[in-house]
């Protein structure tokens, strides 16, 4: 315990969000008895679900539908199962290198997907697996990529941090670099006259990068349809937000760009805020900042136990009182939308889906040796040859 004491901050930490936002997953209230479960019904979010900077908070009344809530539940559960499978595969040494898991943060990735349209664009950093699946990828494709196999979404050439779909631009390994790239994607959407929103995500750790502010400035200057989303899970690797950021209110750091802080553990609040943001930028109001207050149960990556810079009690408390999946489960059961048994069946289905995807992924072979040489340059524009490790190792195109 003494060794842990070394890592406890010397100054007693005043929770940065104690004044306003709350991060429980189960405080949304039903407004009226649901007459007809096939129709939308209204629920009311906790009044401390949002904080706004230079804009209005979204209304606390949200319209939801039973089948959508059940789908979101299943998706969150599937994503959690996928990340847990990756955890096991990494420990079995079938996945190597970097593996950053998003367990605990499912409300953000799933909430985002349910709040946007297929033609919208998303880019994030390396904690990207659920986003890749939500944006049109497959669990098998993600797992196979982690295993370094041909069936991987990048054919085994990229690994955990470099997974893409036509509307999802990764998966990026350099902290913060994805934010200007995201602004560029938004720039292109505007240039091409598309009425879409581009969501560029980054973490509390990346939030202090200079290039993030460069992107903010140009997005505001040029009125780009970009939503800059800080996924604040309170730790950048082993450094807490309070120890890295002189201003931990990340939603206020856009200077002239308005911002919205959101309870990232309640998926109904998260999705509602995403819809608000999408509307904001597609109606020509320029960029918007969002900050999802969320939490990761695991360490920064598979190499980090996640307990040297925070207490086990803190992790346990978050898991037991603020888990996004448990929160949605409570809503579904309390509002009479499904029984515990029915939800358990969804849990089993999620597990089965992931297990099958893992099995199929494992069957996929490793890339061929010749695939070392493909995709360095655009197909058809390669030079006559590329060099290997010594002068006789030459690949001719």
């Amino acid at each position, binding site marked *: 315990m003494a060794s842990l004491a070394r890592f406890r901050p010397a100054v007693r930490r005043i929770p940065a969000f104690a004044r306003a936002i709350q991060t429980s997953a189960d405080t949304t209230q039903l407004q009226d008895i649901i007459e007809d479960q096939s129709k939308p019904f209204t629920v009311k979010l906790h009044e401390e679900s949002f904080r706004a900077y230079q804009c209005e908070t979204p209304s606390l009344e949200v319209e939801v539908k039973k089948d959508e809530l059940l789908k979101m539940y299943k998706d969150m559960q599937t994503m959690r199962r996928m990340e847990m499978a990756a955890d096991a595969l990494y420990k079995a040494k079938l996945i190597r290198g970097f593996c950053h898991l998003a367990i605990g943060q499912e409300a953000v990735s799933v909430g985002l997907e349910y709040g946007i349209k297929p033609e919208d*664009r998303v*880019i994030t950093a390396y904690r990207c697996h659920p986003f890749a699946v939500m944006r049109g990828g497959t669990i098998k494709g993600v797992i196979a990529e982690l295993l370094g196999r041909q069936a*991987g*979404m*990048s*054919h*085994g*050439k*990229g*690994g955990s941090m*470099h997974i*893409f779909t036509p509307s999802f*631009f*990764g998966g*990026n*390994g*350099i902290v913060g*670099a994805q*934010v*200007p*790239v*995201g*602004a*560029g*994607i*938004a*720039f*292109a*959407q505007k*240039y*091409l006259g598309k009425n879409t929103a581009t969501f560029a995500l980054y973490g509390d750790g990346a939030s202090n990068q*200079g*290039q993030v502010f*460069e*992107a903010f*400035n*140009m997005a505001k*200057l*040029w009125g780009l349809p970009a939503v800059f989303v800080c996924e604040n899970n309170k730790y950048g690797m082993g450094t807490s937000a309070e120890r890295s950021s002189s201003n931990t209110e990340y939603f206020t750091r856009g200077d002239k760009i308005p911002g919205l802080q959101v309870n990232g553990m309640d998926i109904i609040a998260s999705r509602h805020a995403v819809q608000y943001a999408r509307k904001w930028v597609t109606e020509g109001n320029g960029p918007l900042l969002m900050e999802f207050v969320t939490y990761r149960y695991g360490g920064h990556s598979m190499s980090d136990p996640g307990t040297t810079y925070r207490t086990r009690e803190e992790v346990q408390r978050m898991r037991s009182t603020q888990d996004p999946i448990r929160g949605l489960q409570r809503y579904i059961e309390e509002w009479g939308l499904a029984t515990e048994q029915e939800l358990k069946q969804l849990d089993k289905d999620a597990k089965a889906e992931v297990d099958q995807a893992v099995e199929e992924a494992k069957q996929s072979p490793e890339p061929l040796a010749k695939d070392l040489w*493909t*995709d*360095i*340059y*655009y*197909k058809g*524009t390669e*030079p*006559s040859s*590329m060099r290997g490790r010594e*002068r006789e190792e030459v690949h001719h195109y």
Partner: protein
Amino acid sequence: MAAARAAFSRVAPAIASVRARPSLALKRAAFARGYATASENSMTVRDALNVAMEEEMMRDENVFILGEEVARYNGAYKVTKGLLDKFGEKRVVDTPITEMGFAGIAVGAALSGLRPICEFMTFNFAMQAIDQIVNSAGKTYYMSGGNVPCPVVFRGPNGAASGVGAQHSQDYAAWYGSIPGLKVVSPWSAEDCKGLLKAAIRDPNPVVFLENEMMYGVTFPMSSEAMSDNFTLPIGKAKVEREGTDITIVAHSKMVTHSLEAADILAKEGVKAEVINLRSIRPLDIDTIKASVKKTNRLLIVEGGFPAFGVGSEICAQIVESEAFDYLDAPVERVTGADVPTPYATNLEALAFPDTPVIVKVAKRALYRTN
């Protein structure tokens, strides 16, 4: 003799222009217009770059330019002059002084299907953005298993200028040249600039296009073929600017001028130098160099960058590793920038970069001559 002079004038424009300079009035008119007239068929490097961008922007609506001072200022070096007036603010975009940010924006735009031309005021400033160039642009196609191409052009002046000191004079050809996934071009003449920039813009790969500020104002003859709006040159092919039999001199960018001047001086002393204009750093056209070395048996590489780990080092290594090694009658020679941060004082700066006398001296050394 007439044929030799014709060949001479084609490859040594600095000298040719002295002999065949058009009347002052005509020149002034051409300068004011900013273009060479078709009958003259000559153009400055600056105009060739301008015309290349204009033609490609007319050809493809997705081509646009961004960078500092490219629009209203007409370009810090006037390379983008007139383009804002022709194409408007949507397609010629002034950026704040935030290289990392706007290079990233260029990459994002390219990933989304546009064809950005990202200008760096000089490549010294591109160091602020080098992560976006190398990691976001250069490697993404590979890391995505061929799913996500990045057709961006990063262009701007590279290498020595005049009297601008150490932080503004570095040559980055070797740095970008070492990255698989990038193409790196270092043109010399107006024709090179036009053909290669058009090719770079049309190329679906990320291309680093290294110009040279001291070449912007130099006029070169342009073939009628080069005047066409569909004229491109292949990236990765060198050009033999002057044929010879006694020694191969390989150079890129401004050093081609010095190498040709050296070849003229050597010719007076009975040495026929073959001068190769690399045109591209990556892919490197080693085959053209090899064929030349097999003919001349001696190799001298001239470049403006630092000597350590440079373009000359790479060419030397590749030649020594190849069958051309057996054809060498002398060690490979390199003439490079000096291993010093570029000084300001004129006399010291002159000692920091190759000049024609140094090239002549080293060429003779390769020929085992002391005079």
